[in-house]
């Protein structure tokens, strides 16, 4: 499945792993914060309206 990367396999795979890790942290963090704030806002709005 993985193409023949020769003697630079560690460097290439390492670079992709670091990138995917950082992107996953950025996207995951953004989604989690979005969900948390949306939930908190909904609770406060319901409290104010209720």
């Amino acid at each position: 499945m993985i193409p023949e990367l020769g003697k630079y396999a560690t460097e290439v795979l390492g670079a992709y792993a670091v990138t995917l890790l950082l992107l996953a942290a950025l996207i995951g963090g953004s989604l989690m914060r979005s969900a948390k704030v949306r939930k908190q806002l909904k609770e406060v709005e319901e409290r104010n309206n209720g």
Partner: protein
Amino acid sequence: MASIWQYANPVKFMQTSAKVLPALSVLTAVTLIVGLVWGFFFTPDDYKQGSTVKIMFIHVPAALMAINAWLMMLVASLIWLVRRHHVSALAARAAAPIGITMTLIALFTGAIWGQPMWGTYWAWDPRLTSFLVLFLFYLGYMALWAAIENPDAAADLTSVLCMVGSVFALLSRYAVNFWNQGLHQGASVSLDKEEHVNDVFFYPLLLCMIGFVLLFVLLVLLRTRTEIRTRRLKTLMARERMT
């Protein structure tokens, strides 16, 4: 004709971005996956750099966004300073964590790529050093937003810092041309045929660059929505405390 300034209204921004986000998410995912799979699995090794050329498909788009995020932040900051639209200030704030992540990716992948090509992970080369300073500018910008409680004062001060950071981002872009004694090569995508990468690498690279731009736009929209909600949440909670 509808004015672009209507999107400065938080309600209008929330409504429009909610409609755009699902389609944009799919488009971003498809572009990124196709670009990265094409670049990683279906491109040949370079005759000089071997398989490390595959690092280009993440390094170049990340560096592109690390620099150009400042452009977006600059425009948003200027809109805030001139027209006092809160959504634009919040959009600039929302972009910074994305920009700093892109800078980190560019720095890490550059270091990993540099070791086999230059024999070192790091050198005080103009492009590398200017990217490190760019990273510090992002840190300072985010810290300033976090440190000031008054949101308008924070937006004012960070807008001024953003102008300085943008000048530095421009310098980073052209550092290779200004100070040509460094290790880093010129632009991979260039009108100069001698510098421009071969078409076999160019098309997947172009797709990856488009994918990173789309990812940036997607995340800025998502994070700006969160910033708007956070602002409203703080207002409502402050009102609750007063009653």
